Structures are given as C-alpha cells and as structure tokens.
C-alpha cells in the first residue's frame, strides 16, 4: 500500500477512534464505509481492518483513567457471553453472504438505530433518589454535567442479552463492533444512561470484536499495513474522544450519533441498489 492511502487510512482511523470513544461504539461504523466506499476494499477486508481498530479503541478506553467510574464492568462482562457467541457466528457466516446482502444489512441496521436514537432524545434513565438501590446489574456514578450522583437500574435483561447477541453477529458480519446496537438499546430499552452505556460498551467491545477478529486474521482478511495505519490513527483519535466524552452533553451525543448513522445508512441503501 502506498504512503498516501496509508495516511488516509490513518486519518480515517483517527476520526473513527475519536467518535468511537466518544459514543462508545468502537468506531468501526465510520471506518468500514470509508475503507469500502472511498478506498474500494471489499466488505470482508474492510471489516477485518475495522475489527482491529475496534479492539484498539476498546483497549485504550480500558487502559485510560477517564470514565472509569462510569464503566459497569459486571453488566459489561455478562453481555459479552452472548456477544462473543454472536461474533463467532457472524465471522463464520459472512463467507456465505454476497456484498449486496452485506450492504443491505449495513443500511438497515444503521437506519433503524438512527431512528430509535432520534425518537428518544430526552430519555434520561436516571433515578433521582440516590438511596434507591441500583440492583445487581445497575450502577452509580458522578455526573459532571449536572454535578450530582447518578443511579440507574438495569431493566429487561433478556432484551439486553438478545441485543448483545445480535450486536455480536453484526460485529462478525460487518466488522463494526457490537456497540452500534448495544449502546442505543441499553439506553432506550434497558434503563442505562447514555454515558454509562457508552463507557461500558466502549470498554468491553474489544472482547466482542475478539469473537470475530482471529477468524478474519486466520482467513487472510486483515491487511497488516492498512490495519496498523488505522490502529495508529485510532490511538490518537480515541484519546481526543475520551477527553471530550465527560464534557459532551448527552443529548448532543445522541443527535451526533443519529446523524452519522443516517448518513451511513443512505450511502449503503444507494450501494445495495446499484450493486
């Protein structure tokens, strides 16, 4: 790969890492379309590189100090049980799907999630009385935005498990990490505040990606120079995202995520029609 494409991949990795750390969705949702649409890599090669950046983003979030109080590790590891199984199924199953089918899946998933996010902008999922127990899988943290402690309970555990499995399958199929489903679903349906959902998912999404990445690597779908360039970009970009995360307003995080997803969905509707 030439110097200029590698620099482009590095820059795309930086943007993906920043948005991924900020939104808790790993960044793959931004990188896969770039690699696929702009650089012309096929979906499996784009997914293989993207999975590496998802792991890198998650590793940096895990190794950093920011957001540590917000991460709900107990809930995160529970959700990895179905997510890793889904990741393996997705990575194995992608070989039997055409590019057009993958485009349609990509367009559908991003479009639905953008719509869900936009219809639930004002949902807070916060228990105002801090004396109410958060339960085995809930949590509490101090929110800088409002200057007070936040307590939340997990609701609809089967939904959270099912969504995590689906997120794992999508991660394996498309290389986008499972956070693309987990973050909005935990927030909209399971009672977890956006910031806790994003931080927990960002920390754990590397494990989901590990359910697929070794399969892609063994299959030869990870172009090492491009993957390294993307990961180095992510190393820089995710630091910026982590710095911005505690300072960003939850409502604007949701709007940003919905707008980006809607654009990606439009691109893939077009590609699935013209493929």
């Amino acid at each position, binding site marked *: 790969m030439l110097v200029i494409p590698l620099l482009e991949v590095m820059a795309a990795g930086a943007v993906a890492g920043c948005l991924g750390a900020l939104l808790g969705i790993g960044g793959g949702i931004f990188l896969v379309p770039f690699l696929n649409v702009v650089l012309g890599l096929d979906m499996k090669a784009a997914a293989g590189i993207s999975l590496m950046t998802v792991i890198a983003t998650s590793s940096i979030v895990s190794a950093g100090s920011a957001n540590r109080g917000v*991460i709900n590790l107990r809930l995160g*590891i529970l959700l990895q049980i179905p997510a890793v199984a889904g990741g*393996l199924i997705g990575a194995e199953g992608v070989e039997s799907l055409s590019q057009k089918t993958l485009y349609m899946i990509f367009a559908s998933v991003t479009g639905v999630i953008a719509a869900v996010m936009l219809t639930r902008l004002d949902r807070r999922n916060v228990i105002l009385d801090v004396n109410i127990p958060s339960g085995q899988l809930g949590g509490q943290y101090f929110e800088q935005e409002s200057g007070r402690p936040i307590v939340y309970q997990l609701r609809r555990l089967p939904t959270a498990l099912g969504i995590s499995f689906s997120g794992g399958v999508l991660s394996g199929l498309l290389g986008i990490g499972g956070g693309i489903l987990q973050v909005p679903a935990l927030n909209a349906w399971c009672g977890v505040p956006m910031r806790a959902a994003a931080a927990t998912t960002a920390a754990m999404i590397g494990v989901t990606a590990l359910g697929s990445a070794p399969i892609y690597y063994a299959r030869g779908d990870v172009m090492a*120079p491009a993957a*390294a*360039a993307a990961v180095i970009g992510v190393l820089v970009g995710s630091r910026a995202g982590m710095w911005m995360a505690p300072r960003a307003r939850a409502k604007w995080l949701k709007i940003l995520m919905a707008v980006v997803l809607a654009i990606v969905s439009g691109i893939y509707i077009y590609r699935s029609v013209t493929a």
Partner: protein
Amino acid sequence: MSTPTDLDERFLWVSRANVMLFGAAMVAGLVLHLASPYGVLSVRLLQAGLVLLMAAPALRILTAVAERIRRRDWVFVLMTAIVVVELGIVLWRAATR
C-alpha cells in the same frame, strides 16, 4: 451493584504496557514497510503488533477476573469463565482454518 472505581486499578499497568507494545510494534513495522514494502522485518513487526492487539481484550478480562477472585465475587468469575471458554473456541476455529 458494580464497584468499578477501584476494580482493576492494580492491573492497569498491564493494559497500558500492552497498548504501548502493540503501538510501538505497529509504528516500527509501518515505518519499515514504507522504507521497504513487505520486507521480512516489517511484516513480522506488523503481525506481532496485530497479535499483541488481539491479546489486549483477553488480558483485560483476565486481570479483571483476578481481582474478582480476590474479592470472592464468584458470579463475576463464572460469567468471565464462560466468556474465556467462548474465546478459546474462537481461537480453535481460527487455528484450524
């Protein structure tokens, strides 16, 4: 309820060291690749970087579970053990391709 603030602070250096290792291997591999595309050393460094990268999430959950064993949080340990078994199956599937 989770108590994440001090959960695996003791092992944080492991995660940080691994990030520095895979980052350094990838930067060095990429620089060598640009100087001499697909040379033996650059390919080995890039592959080492990718393997170290893939080891990062596994290290993360192993260090977290070590802390939870110390705290006798057996439910967390059981959940993590299931994930570790699943990851073992993934590695086996990858190795037998």
